[in-house]
C-alpha cells in the first residue's frame, strides 16, 4: 500500500526513530561483540593455554573451572542488564512511536501488511 509505505518511510526517517535505532544498535552490537570475544577467549585458552587453565586456585578448583563459571555469570549479568536497559531506554521510546503510528494516518497500515495477515 503506497500510503502506508510512505508512512513507514516517514517514521523511519523521523528523529525519534533514529534515536530508538541508535539506542538499540549502540547497545546490542557492542555487547554482542564483547560477549563473543569473551567467549572466544575462553575457547582459545581451553585450546592453547592449558598450563594457565590448570593452575589450582582453591583446593581442586582450577582456573578453567572458574573461567567456565564466569561465562555463566557474565551471561546472567548481560541478560539482566539488557532487560533493564531495554525497559528504561528502549521501551518508552518504542511505545511513543508505536502510538503515533496507531493514531496517525497509517492506522490502516497494520491491517494491510505483507502476508495478508490480520493485525
Amino acid at each position: 500500500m503506497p500510503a502506508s509505505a510512505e508512512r513507514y518511510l516517514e517514521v523511519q526517517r523521523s528523529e525519534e526513530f533514529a534515536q530508538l535505532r541508535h539506542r538499540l544498535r549502540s547497545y546490542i552490537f557492542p555487547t554482542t561483540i564483547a560477549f563473543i570475544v569473551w567467549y572466544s577467549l575462553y575457547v582459545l585458552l581451553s585450546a592453547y593455554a592449558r598450563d594457565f587453565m590448570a593452575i589450582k586456585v582453591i583446593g581442586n578448583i582450577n582456573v578453567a573451572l572458574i573461567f567456565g563459571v564466569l561465562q555463566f555469570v557474565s551471561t546472567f549479568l548481560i541478560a539482566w542488564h539488557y532487560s533493564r536497559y531495554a525497559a528504561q531506554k528502549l521501551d518508552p521510546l518504542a511505545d511513543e512511536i508505536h502510538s503515533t503510528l496507531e493514531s496517525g494516518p497509517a492506522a490502516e497500515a497494520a491491517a494491510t501488511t505483507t502476508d495478508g495477515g490480520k493485525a
Partner: protein
Amino acid sequence: MAPQILAAEADAAGSRSLTITLFLVFVAITLGITIWASRQTKTATDFYAGGRQFSGFQNGMAIGGDYMSAASFLGIAGIIALYGYDGFLYSIGFLVAWLVALLLVAEFLRNSGRFTMADVLAFRMRQRPVRTAASVSTIVVSIFYLIAQMVGAGALVSLLLGIKPGATFLGMDANTAKVATIILVGALMIIYVTVGGMKGTTYVQIVKAFMLMTGALIMVLLVLAHYKFNLSALLGDAATRSGKGSAFLEPGLRYGVETAGDAAKTFYSKMDLLSLGLALVLGTAGLPHILTRFYTVPTSRIARKSVLWAIGIIGTFYLFTLALGFGAAALVGGKEITAQDKAGNTAAPQLAQKLGLDYLGGETGGAIMLAVIAAVAFATILAVVAGLTLASSSSLAHDFYASVIKRGNASERDEVRVARYSALLIGAVSIALSIFAQSLNVAFLVALAFAVAASANLPAILYSLFWRRFNTAGALWSIYGGLISAVVLVFFSPVVSGSATAMFPNSDWHFFPLSNPGIISIPLGFFFGWLGTILSKETDPEKYAELEVRALTGHGAH
C-alpha cells in the same frame, strides 16, 4: 541397568516395570493435556502459535523443555563423567548462545513474523523462492536433530529397560525393542503435534522441563550432600577415581587433544575445538523449533521475558550437569559407566541408581531413583521431538504449501489441515530414517544440526533484520550456500568416512580434516549472503522501512 550393581534380577524387573509405569503416567498426563488443548485449538494462530497466550515464565519453561534435549541431559553428563572438564565446554557454548537470541533475534522476530522463521526472511523479499529455501533448511535442520533424538531414544531403551544382549523383554530382543521404541516415540510425537498443535506441545514442554529440573535437582543435592557441600572434595574424588588425576579437571582429554610428535594432528584437533565452539554459540538462534517458540507469547516484551527465564532455567540446569557428571565419575566410576555404554550416555541414570542405593533405602531406593530418572530421560526425548516436528510441519504448511504452492491463497483451515498431514509425513520419514540411522553418533547429529542452523539460517536472519541492502538473491545465496557448505564439508569429513568411528569405517573419501564444519561453513554463509546481495540490483527501501519500524516498535505485530 548396570547388572553388577543389582543384587537380584527381581530388582531389575521391579525397576523396569516402575520405569514403564512412570513413563506411562507421563504419557497419560501429556495426552490428556493434548486432548484438552485440541479443544481450544480452532484457528491457525492456535495451531501454530498456541494462540499467543503463554506467559513469559510458561514460555521460558517451554523453551527450556525444547532446548534441554537428551544430548544435554544424558550426553553432557556422560562426557563430563568420562572425559571430565571437556563436557563443560558444551554447556557453556549452549548457554552463551542464548545471548545471541536475546539481543539480536527474539524480539524482532516476534514483532515482524507470524508463524515461522520464513515470515521474517521473506518479509521484504520475493516470497516463493525465499520461503522455499527457508522451508528446506528448516526441514534439514529439524530432521538431523529429530534423528539424533530418536536414535538416542532407541539406544537408551535397551539399557534403561535393562534388556541384556540375548535376553528378551515382552518377547522382544534388544534390537526389536530399539525399533519398537523409535516407532513408539515417533507415533506419540505425531499425536502430540497433530492433535494438540502448539498449545498441546507447549504444555508438554512445560511438564517435561519441570520433571527434568526436579529430577536433576534431587540428584545434585544428594551428590553435594555426600561431599558435605565441599565442591573441591567432589572434584578431587572424581579426578582420582577417573585414573587421570588433575588432567581430568582440565580441558584437553577429548577436544583439542595434543598428540606428541604429530603437529598436524594436534593443530586439526584444536581447530575442531574452535569449530565446535563457534557452531554451538551461533547455532541456537538459527534453530527453527526455538524460533517458533517466540510466537507463542502476546508481545515482544514477553518474548524478551521468556528468554530471560529460559537463560535462568537452562543455565541452572547446565550447572547441575556439572555436578551430575563429576558426581557420576566420582561415585559410579568411569569403568562401570563404559561397561554399560561406551559413549557414557547412561552416566546420569547410573548415578541415580547409586544415589538411591546409598541414600534412599538400599536396593529399592536405587531401583526407584533409576526408574524416575529413566522416565525423565524418555519424557525429555519425547518433548523435544514433538517441538521439532511441529516446527518443520509448520514450515511445510505455512511456507511451502500456502505461499509457494497456493501463492498465498490457501484458507486458514486448509493450511492447518496440511500442517497436520505434514506432521504425519515428517514423523513417518524420521521414524524410517532413524531406524536406518541407528549406528550414527548422536552427538555428531546434534552438532551438525547446530552447524547447519548457524551457517544457513543465522546469517539470513541477521542480514534480514539489520541490513537495508539485503535482498532476495542474498537470502537465497546465504541459505543455500551455508546449508550446502555445511553438509558437503561433513560428507567429506572423518565422521563420514576414513576413521574407525566413521559412518563408513571401511571406506575413505575424506579430505576435510575437521569433524565439525562450523569454522568454515558459518563464515561462508555470511560471505555468500553478502556476495549474493551485492551481485543483485534488487532493493526495496520501502519494505525495509516497514520491517524495521515494525520490528523495533511492535507496530502491526500479529
